[in-house]
């Protein structure tokens, strides 16, 4: 589907977004990309194509300048199952840490439009944003503290699901995190979820779709089983746009599809409406 041209300015908190890896041409419209112009536009092409952001960019985009206070950033993953092939898990996580990435989920407190909140952002660059013990621990602790302190909880997801290399303990994070989601809901704290491309598997089937308000980015792929596996398992021909944000809107799973450039203003407004 054709998206309306992005016209609104990004109302960012002030700091510049970090550079991200970009193709030479936009996958949405084919235009050759100007990285600097895109960066000022929250990495949304004029055609409406949203490029994937890491957790660092999300924190800059959503947190008021200077308000970010990261929590439990020093809790690190390690190889529990002695996972060796095709690549040792320990080498995978060490290499990502050397690249400056700190796990698939970062969490902490900040303000958004002056309102103190808890923020958690997935990072797809870290083993596909997969739910790990450390990711689950950061999410559950943050939600427990949000429930106890009454601060709203804001989640930004981008994840392939549970992390294979942590085996069944990664699967159990879905239960661990959802136990905390239940407490968040019974405490009366608002929980807003922003689903970005892609959100699948154990992350979609745990906290990401259980918010009070589910917001998806245009074109984001959201589902449980990925299209490749569906085709393998059922030989089905999937229509264009299957599992897109717009597909999930039509099927009642998300409340709205919102341009990234509009997101901060929307969230600030929601935070005023849900005190």
């Amino acid at each position: 589907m054709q998206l309306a041209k992005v016209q609104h300015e990004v109302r960012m908190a002030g700091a510049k977004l970090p550079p991200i890896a970009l193709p030479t041409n936009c996958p949405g419209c084919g235009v050759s990309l100007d990285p600097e112009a895109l960066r000022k536009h929250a990495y949304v092409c004029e055609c409406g194509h949203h490029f994937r952001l890491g957790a660092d960019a999300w924190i800059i985009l959503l947190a008021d300048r200077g308000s970010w206070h990261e929590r439990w950033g020093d809790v690190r993953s390690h190889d529990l199952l002695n996972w060796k092939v095709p690549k040792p898990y320990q080498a995978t996580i060490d290499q990502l840490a050397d690249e400056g990435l700190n796990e698939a989920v970062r969490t902490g407190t900040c303000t958004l439009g002056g309102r103190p909140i808890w923020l958690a952002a997935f990072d797809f660059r870290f083993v596909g944003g997969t739910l790990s013990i450390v990711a689950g621990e950061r999410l559950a602790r943050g939600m427990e503290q949000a429930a106890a302190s009454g601060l709203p909880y804001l989640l930004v997801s981008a994840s392939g699901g549970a992390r294979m290399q942590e085996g069944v303990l990664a699967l159990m994070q879905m239960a661990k995190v959802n136990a905390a989601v239940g407490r968040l809901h019974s405490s009366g704290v608002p929980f807003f979820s922003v689903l970005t491309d892609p959100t699948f598997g154990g992350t979609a089937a745990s906290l990401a779709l259980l918010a009070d308000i589910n917001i998806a980015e245009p074109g984001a792929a959201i589902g449980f089983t990925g299209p490749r596996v569906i085709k393998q398992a059922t030989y089905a021909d999937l229509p264009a746009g299957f599992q897109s944000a717009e597909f999930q809107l039509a099927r009642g799973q998300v409340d709205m599809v919102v341009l990234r450039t509009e997101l901060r203003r929307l969230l600030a407004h929601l935070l005023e409406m849900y005190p």
Partner: protein
Amino acid sequence: MTRHGRRLEETTLTVWQVVELARHASRPYSLDYIRRLAPDFIELHGDRISADDPALVAGVGTWHGRTTVFLGHQKGRSLKERVARNWGMMHPEGYRKALRLAHHAAKFGFPIISLIDTPGAYPGAGAEERGIAAAIARAIMEWFRIPVPIVAAVIGEGGSGGALGMGVADRVIMLENSIYSVASPEAAASIVWRDNSRKVEAAEQLQLTSRDLLAMGVVEEVVPEPEGGAHMDFDAAARVLDEALFRHAQPLLAQPADVLLQHRYERFRYIDSLIHAEPHFGPKID
């Protein structure tokens, strides 16, 4: 040895042989156990919204003198039945049926027994269109609010989120030759190697056998199976499972609901604490 002192024989089987036993075509399925545990079992149907999911058997039966809600993934024996049961792979309606019966149990104070035996939730377009991700997510969250004792047993395959959606319980036990995994070996191989023929290597790395899960502290007990596997003697397998389920359910029946729910929360909230305590946990117990 299990925590309760039952002798668990050492195994000489390879990991892949355990996977094959867990999937054995003659292995007892949920209804084979439920009819032996509660001969007066009455099956109940439907999610009360749109459909009945035949991949999940649900109903009530008298178990140790007490009305009990039974839930279980059901695979089929003949090809026709397998198709009808969708190989034990649930659609969103199945998770809603399970929650409906969970609230039913809560209303009457019935304990719940959940038998897990599924390759996973159904990986098809229809399940996606009707919101399988959110259905599983909601089920997992709601299980933490059901104020009656829940004991789950993995009797064959515990595949991924489709299994966990039925596996939030106060106690989780496993039959000796069952498996419980973040993804099926084929799916894990497809994800990690992009090649699902590497399933044997994937199975070996995933640590998915009952003994692995007991060592990780994810399940409370491994229930020994008859010589050669549960399919060799349905009655004997059901007797040992019955005894283990009841031994776990009994102390729960006396607990006040708030204590029960707090312990259920903590069971999953700190399920990886054994790992935190042992940073270099890794080698398998054999």
